[in-house]
């Protein structure tokens, strides 16, 4: 086809092509704020030419391809970093609460409670027959015991909240996985018929990022364009099928949720293999960080209970009563295992009911004898009063040293999490910027393309106008 009508056809086709280009530009501009959107680029190619009388004529322009401009490597890196930032993000929130629990700012922390308790014994040593001083010893002992118990309990409720979050996170993960699997199916079907499936790819990237925020995964793309997702080294999403996560209560771990991955065979418990993502962070807090703090509170409580009792039970009150324990004694189930000591921490109810029974004297009947009160006040300076390595023997420094180390541990772990969260955020910004350098929509670029295609469209319209005029001339020849 050549000649005027051929040119008309050429003009029409080119106008349509340019209109189509407007649509792509519009799509790009419209999605400028869409997460993970990769800009589309139009590849134009000259239409196939025709041979006519030994000459070759072009027939206009065609759209060869509209493709998403993406960098797979960057996408993987973002994927990976998201898992880190998801973990630190979930942990830092919990650390803020833990830090607030232990805070000594309100002057009712464990540190100050210990000081008040031992100083109340010193006051009693100044007035060994005093009843007011005895009331004070019992009350300071009760405050110390309940402070330790309260922090321990608050840590437990944090664990309970984290455990609930495990449940909801697993639901979120399964929902995302289900959608990824179905997108996998659509993409592989589309690719077979030659479509690029850019929009679905973008959506899948959003979902994969979301999944990575929640849990550590490994992702790779197969030839069919499907994303295979592995979790804890086991297949999680393969093509159009996904293996949902399941949760079950673990009786050996406070009845907290365990996470299992369903497989073709029996489900595999992957609780301890989930290290990253929000879920990894939650599990680390629930199963490692908080139990470690609780363990230290147990050791501290056991150290105080046992050492105070050892001295108090050798002493005499002013009433000639038999020697007794100051705190309710705690016996570890096995040597070095003080689980339950903090929760068990309380002043002997006999003494609470009758503070007269608090002992200050080392000799029965010597009411002015203050040796036991002195020894108990001196306990705050005694070393080797806490079993810090759970081997069944007291080995640490003073109570205050031990508690100081605990605050450093909490502070250091919190600080690491906060700074990793910031660092990870910074890395993600960098990576996403690099991705946007490649894939992001630039309004300048789009507006210049718009001008470009507008000019081409105007020129083609003018061309069509000329052809139309020429056709008019031809039609009106001789009239």
């Amino acid at each position, binding site marked *: 086809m050549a000649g005027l009508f051929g040119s008309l056809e050429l003009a029409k086709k080119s106008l349509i092509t340019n209109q189509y280009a407007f649509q792509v530009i519009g799509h790009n501009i419209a999605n400028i*704020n869409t997460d993970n959107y990769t800009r589309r680029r139009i590849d134009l190619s000259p239409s196939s030419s025709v041979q006519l009388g030994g000459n070759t004529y072009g027939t206009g322009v065609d759209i060869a391809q509209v493709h998403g401009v993406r960098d797979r490597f960057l996408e993987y890196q973002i994927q990976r970093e998201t898992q880190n930032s998801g973990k630190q993000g979930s942990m830092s929130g919990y650390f803020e609460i833990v830090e607030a629990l232990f805070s000594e700012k309100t002057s009712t922390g464990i540190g100050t409670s210990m000081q008040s308790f031992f100083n109340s014994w010193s006051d009693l040593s100044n007035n060994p027959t005093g009843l007011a001083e005895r009331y004070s010893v019992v009350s300071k002992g009760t405050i110390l015991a309940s402070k330790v118990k309260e922090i321990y309990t608050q840590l437990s409720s944090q664990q309970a909240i984290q455990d609930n979050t495990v449940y909801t996170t697993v639901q979120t993960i399964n929902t995302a996985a289900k959608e990824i699997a179905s997108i996998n199916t659509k993409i592989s079907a589309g690719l077979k018929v030659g479509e690029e499936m850019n929009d679905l790819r973008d959506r899948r990237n959003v979902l994969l990022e979301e999944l990575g925020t929640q849990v550590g995964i490994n992702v790779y793309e197969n030839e069919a364009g499907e994303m295979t997702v592995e979790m804890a080294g086991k297949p999680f999403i393969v093509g159009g099928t996904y293996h949902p996560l399941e949760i079950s209560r673990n009786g050996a771990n406070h009845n907290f949720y365990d996470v299992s991955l369903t497989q073709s065979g029996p489900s595999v418990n992957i609780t301890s293999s989930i290290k990253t993502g929000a879920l990894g962070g939650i599990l680390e807090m629930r199963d490692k960080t908080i139990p470690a703090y609780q363990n230290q509170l147990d050791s501290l409580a056991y150290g105080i209970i046992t050492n105070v009792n050892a001295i108090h039970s050798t002493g005499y009150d002013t009433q000639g009563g038999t020697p007794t324990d100051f705190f309710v004694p705690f016996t570890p189930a096995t040597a070095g295992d003080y689980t339950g000591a903090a929760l068990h921490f309380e002043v002997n109810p006999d003494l609470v009911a009758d503070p007269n029974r608090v002992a200050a004297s080392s000799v029965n009947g010597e009411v002015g004898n203050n040796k036991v009160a002195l020894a108990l006040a001196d306990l705050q300076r005694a070393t080797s009063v806490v079993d810090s390595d759970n081997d069944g023997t007291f080995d640490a420094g003073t109570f205050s040293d031990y508690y100081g180390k605990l605050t450093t541990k909490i502070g250091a772990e919190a600080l690491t999490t906060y700074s990793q969260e910031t660092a990870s955020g910074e890395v993600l910004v960098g990576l996403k910027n690099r991705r946007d350098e490649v894939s992001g929509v630039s309004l300048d670029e789009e507006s210049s393309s718009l001008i470009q295609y507008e000019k081409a469209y105007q020129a083609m319209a003018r061309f069509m106008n000329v052809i139309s005029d020429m056709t008019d001339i031809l039609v009106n020849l001789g009239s």
Partner: protein
Amino acid sequence: MRATESMWYRDSLFSINRNKLEFAKTIQQQSSGKRINTFSDDPAGSSFVVGLNDRKSQITQFITNVDRTQTLLSNTETAISQIQNVLNSAVTTLSQATTGTSGPEERALLAVDISEKKKQLLDIANTRVMDRYVFSGTNIDTVPYTETAGVVTYNGNDGLINSQVGASIQVTTNIPGSELFNDGSGDLFTFFENVQTHMLNNDSAALKNDVTRLGEFVKHISTERGIVGNRIAETTTIKTGLKEFSTNVTATISSIEDANMAEVISNLSKEELGLRVALQATARIQSTTLFDYLG
């Protein structure tokens, strides 16, 4: 290299966020006056602060203990000085009784005086300070000396009561009557009973011996007063040391925990500027696309 709008917005948002967080942290430092507001602000520092606060609270308690000890000791010293007065006047009485001119009638009168002095001594020996008998050893709620039919008996013991005034310093806060009123060779009250008897019996030879014996008692009481005086001096030195120590510890805590206000305020204005710049940069992003110049 392409630059896209989303990059600018992301960068701006990130720096606004970071500036805001820093700003909030600095404002917290300014309002609390403390550099360490949570353990994570300085993990090692917060452990120091826990240890130092413990130290400080112990020192405060030691100062309380010293004050208490000093009250007990200075009251004890006053009592001992009263004993010295009684003994000195007893010396006069005894010397009157042993001059050549002293006859049985005069000695009988002086015996009444000695009996009176014994009563005074008994009163002093039963001194109570802060609800406790200071001369009954550890039996602080037992009247240390009681008299039945002219015979005085000691109901206390020889127990000492110590007070913790330093991490490893204890000061004894009492002198048991058994030590104060007995010089090792005999009891002061028994001595006064004997003197009385000697006077009534007009026993010149025995009274002569009594003069020597009384001299020994005067010396003994003076030694005991010296001991108490030394303890008071010792506790005063300790207290001065504790106060200095407390000031130092407080200063150290402050140097670790407290914010440097000049620095905080300069940081505050620096960060405020940073925040403003970030906000302004974000506002400018709007007007930089080609679209703005197309008709």
